[in-house]
């Protein structure tokens, strides 16, 4: 019998049997695939949000670390999700429940500091992020901390006919300011590439037409806030030796290894930030030109740090100077060298820096310093 005959000779009953078995096999494969899919999904949720899955069959490996914060101005609720449209309101009327300052608050999304909104910041202001990492494993932990900045603008609202929408009280009466004028409703809008669309949704034609300036201002803010890893010396008896920080994080990422044996210990990750007032504090190598106003951000002897910051100014010049189109890299190099200091060039750079500050202040209302901690 030929091969062909062998197959064609099969009866209809055989064929049905074969089909059923194939179907069963396929069903089995699908079931397994589906189970794997479910497990993966639940595992992801469980791990990310720290909740226990209800299915007894799913077991999730523990998260290798937690991030934590503490202090009187901390809110540890999962509030980041609400920081969209209700951002400003939430920020100003957030819960005032008393908080134990010594307790470490952990969570998936932490707010490191809470402020009533009175403390407005501008050039010259600085601070420290109250960031801790608590290892949940016995072994050493490698972490990478990434720092980012998100800016928000406060946009006045208009209706579909481009008429201003004013604030009303619970009796549907207009709320008036101290001068008897109606107060326009505003909304916080994240400044990103969709800004024009977001402002358009609020019918604010001015904001739409100025979208490019808003985006620029947010970029200047990202450029003007510098991060550091260590405090400097601001109380030296010799005033000329005072400076703010050490270890500039110009790459905005911090890699750190937490040694083994620190399970459940809160390890502080020191992160300082500063919105430097003047360019001279950042770039001038010393005060021989007499143009430096205020303390330098880094010690004059910290040549490594200064070189890193100078490189940062060069590579990020579009985010630092409002007039970056007329600034060549050599300008920055010349000012960083006392031998080639030129007052005219310094003024060009300073004007660009200060105008960028003005742009930030007049366009950005709130900003978030965002910290992402990852372990590998």
């Amino acid at each position, binding site marked *: 019998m030929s091969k062909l005959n062998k197959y064609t000779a099969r009866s209809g009953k055989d064929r049905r049997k074969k089909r059923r078995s194939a179907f069963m096999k396929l069903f089995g494969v699908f079931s397994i695939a589906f189970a794997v899919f479910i497990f*993966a999904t639940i*595992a*992801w949720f469980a*791990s*990310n949000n720290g909740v226990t899955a209800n299915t007894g069959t799913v077991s999730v490996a523990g*998260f*290798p*670390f*937690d*991030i934590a*914060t503490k202090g009187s101005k901390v809110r540890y609720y999962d509030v*980041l999700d609400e*920081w969209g449209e209700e951002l400003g309101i939430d*920020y100003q009327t957030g819960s005032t429940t008393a908080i134990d300052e010594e307790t470490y608050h952990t969570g*998936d*999304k*932490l*707010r*490191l*500091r*809470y*402020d009533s*909104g009175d*403390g*407005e*910041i*501008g050039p010259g202001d600085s*601070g420290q*992020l109250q*960031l801790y990492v608590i290892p949940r494993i016995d072994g050493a932990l490698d972490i990478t901390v990434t720092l980012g900045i998100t800016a928000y603008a406060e946009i*006045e609202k208009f209706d579909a006919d481009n008429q201003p929408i004013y604030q009303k009280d619970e009796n549907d009466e207009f709320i008036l300011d*101290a*001068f008897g*004028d109606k107060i326009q409703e505003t909304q916080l809008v994240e400044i990103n590439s969709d800004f024009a669309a977001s402002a358009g949704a609020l019918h604010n034609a001015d904001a739409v037409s100025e979208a490019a300036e808003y985006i620029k201002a947010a970029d200047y*803010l990202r450029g003007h806030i510098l991060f550091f890893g260590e405090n400097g010396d601001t109380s030296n008896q010799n005033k000329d030796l005072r400076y703010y920080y050490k270890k500039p994080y110009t790459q905005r990422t911090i890699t750190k290894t937490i040694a083994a044996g620190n399970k459940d210990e809160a390890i502080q990750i020191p992160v300082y930030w500063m919105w430097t007032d003047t360019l001279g504090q950042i770039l001038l190598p010393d005060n021989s030109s007499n143009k430096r106003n205020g303390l330098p951000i880094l010690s004059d002897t910290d040549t490594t740090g200064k070189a890193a910051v100078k490189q940062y100014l060069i590579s990020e010049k579009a985010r630092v100077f409002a007039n970056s189109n007329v600034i060549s890299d050599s300008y920055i190099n010349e000012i960083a060298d006392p031998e080639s200091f030129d007052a005219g060039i310094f003024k060009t750079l300073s004007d660009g820096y200060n105008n960028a*500050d*003005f742009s*930030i*202040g*007049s366009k*950005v*209302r*709130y*900003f*978030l*310093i*965002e*910290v*992402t*901690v*990852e*372990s*590998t």
Partner: protein
Amino acid sequence: MDRILARIKRLPKETKIRFIIIFVITACLAAALPVYSWFCYQRKAAEMYKVEYPNSLYINAANREDQVNFRLAGINIGELRRDEEGYYLNENNERVTSAELAAAITKKQYVFSVSGSNTKRYILQLAHTNNNLFDYAVYEAEQTSSPPSGNVEYIKYQIDPGAHKENPFAVIGTDVAGTTAAAAVTTSAGQTTSPAVTTTAVKYYTKGSMVMQDKDPATDKNRSTDANEDVHLAKDSDIYFNETYGSSANVEAHAIPTYLQKEIRDFETDESKLFCHYYILEVTWNGDRSSVEEKETDMVYLSVSRTN
């Protein structure tokens, strides 16, 4: 290798499609798994800040021009009152035929401006020496681009083109070549209005309510506690005298300065938090020439400082 390829080629179309699907799914899974695990070990935190609107405060000449355009030219106390066409005027501002019938000028007015952004309060200060028997006062002023109607006294100010180097805020309107138009500044009544956008090169200033003035030095001699809106004549035992001259008693009496100050607050700003106030510095004297024959020089200082 060739044999494997040949075998693949020989496969039925159906099987080939299956192979491709399997291959694609595997690739997708391979890509997705590391992404998931990366998410697994990530935690986020954020800190929020409110940004302060940039604040600034400028003291400038009229029309917010550079300070150099604020000219306190020499005062000729013998000068007679004339109109714009040069005719002599009497007490009632009526034209008269001769200098004998004309009234003497008894005051000079100078316009200056205070402007800025995101300022809620500021202190306006005036200090002057007392060599001449002049009285000083500061009034609010309203700027217009056309003369006020009716028999209202006003000051005509010739605009100096290209005189906005100090104050970077654009001057309202397009009345100065080279400056761009800005949104009209909304201010409280009596201080400034939003002038219409015109191309005229002249501005008019009308006197408003008084901000501060010299008082009789005799009665103010030792007043120094209220720093808000009082006149302080620095005299012996006055803290202003002591701060200026220390214990020295040998100071020429008329060189001792008088200080005036007032805190300006509760004013409106526009949507960009800008404001601009105009003021008139008025110097008056007694028309009696005999009392002022000994001419002297006085120094006058104007300053503003932000208090918020």
